[in-house]
């Protein structure tokens, strides 16, 4: 059996990749995909912990996360289309009408 730590390291790595992608990438769709990657990292650690504790609730939580992520994707892509229609670009550096 693969020890728990390996799963946790992998999920932490996935989460970190997502954070790095969120901060580095400039295309809105890619940023959005990075967020999905972070959520999948979280899902992996939920499943690993569920197996560790022999608790079903962790696996059920994963289903909720997936459903919510899908709902978020639907709304998010609609918002991205709205931005593209008004600005004709998906580069975050050019979506800059509101500045600090």
């Amino acid at each position: 059996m693969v020890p728990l730590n390996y799963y946790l390291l992998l999920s932490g790595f996935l989460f970190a990749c997502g954070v790095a992608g969120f901060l580095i990438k400039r295309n809105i769709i890619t940023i959005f995909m990075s967020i999905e990657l972070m959520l999948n990292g979280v899902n992996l650690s939920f499943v690993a912990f569920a197996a560790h504790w022999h608790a079903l609730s962790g696996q059920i939580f994963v289903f909720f996360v997936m459903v919510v992520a899908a709902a978020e994707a639907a709304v998010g892509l609609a918002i991205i289309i709205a931005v593209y229609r008004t600005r004709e670009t998906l580069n975050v550096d050019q979506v800059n009408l509101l500045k600090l």
Partner: protein
Amino acid sequence: MCLRFHILITAITAVVILMSYEYMATQQIRAGEYYSLILLGAVGMCLMSSAVELVLIFIALEISSISTYVLAGFRRRAAISSEASVKYFLLGSFATAFFLYGVALMFGATGSTGISVIAQSLRAGNTSTLAFAGIALMFVGLGFKVAAAPFHIWTPDVYEGAPAPVVALMSTGPKAAVFAVLLRVLFEINAPGRLGLIWVTAALSMTLGNLSALVQHNVKRLLAYSSIAHAGYLMMAYAALPANGIPAVMFYTATYAAMNVGAFAIVSHLAGAGERYVTIEDYAGLGRRSPLLAAALSIFLLSLIGIPMTGGFFAKFYVFSAAFQNSLTGLVIIGVLNSAIGAYYYLRLLVVMYMKEGGQEIPIAPTPLALHAALAISIAATLYLGILPGRVIEFASRSVRDLTQ
């Protein structure tokens, strides 16, 4: 505790709907889905404040967030509105991912996602690194939602771009609900290491919010920075002992909701279709052109400063004294200094309104009945909390027992 937050959130929603009628008419937006989104968001907020299970808290958080993402971009032909929406969406989902990771680690540390089971496990001496990391990550996610520094970057942009009634809702409703969640996460779980986290966030939010507000010209951005500063004052109460901190938090959320919704109701009315009364200079001479609106705005601004006789005074008083009783003198001193800095920019708006001439000589649209009702409710709440705070604070104190058993 749930009941009190439900009343507050319902009241906020009702006032926001009252002020939305006029806005929707001037914007010429077909508004059916607008109202249903507001109500859906309100359901999410109520669920969030009464949830005792991290799964439900997460789902409620998402219900309220997703509907506010859409609402922020409701003027979808205006470029700034959809830009505000996309910024809010990306940073909000980023924060949610952090919150979820925190929940996952908490689940790993205790084997459960129920608040009471987690609390029991931590009281029994489970102080693993996992639990601490879980609390910290959950705090990051929730800190984003209440716009506490250093997680506040999105606030001014989103508040500037989103429609004013929506800003009135999202600067008060989801915040109140998330503060309720923080009550559970920090007080009921009795989070390890919470003092350090709160000390840093509260001090940073107050200082950054007030200092940045000093240099703003756009009124909505000014109110955005002021809301960051107020999140900082509120955070102080979480560093206090539960018996003092919980009522202080509840009183502050109610007061802040009353005065902020009122201020945004006026900003929204003056802005019309969105291009008038944008900067502080545009408000010059408002006291002469529209004495009633200017007087109402003055009450809200004085309350935001924390002048006696308004709710803002007692809100700050309870928070500061709660923190002081837990011997957080340093934090209280930072808070009091910040209130003094904060007074400057609210007073600047007041001075411009009453003592300067000029500004935009655009005739102000007559105030509709619904807006009168919205303003009357907000003013009544602000003054009631400022003159007779006793009953509300007593009502709030009852929830101490529910949370600390």
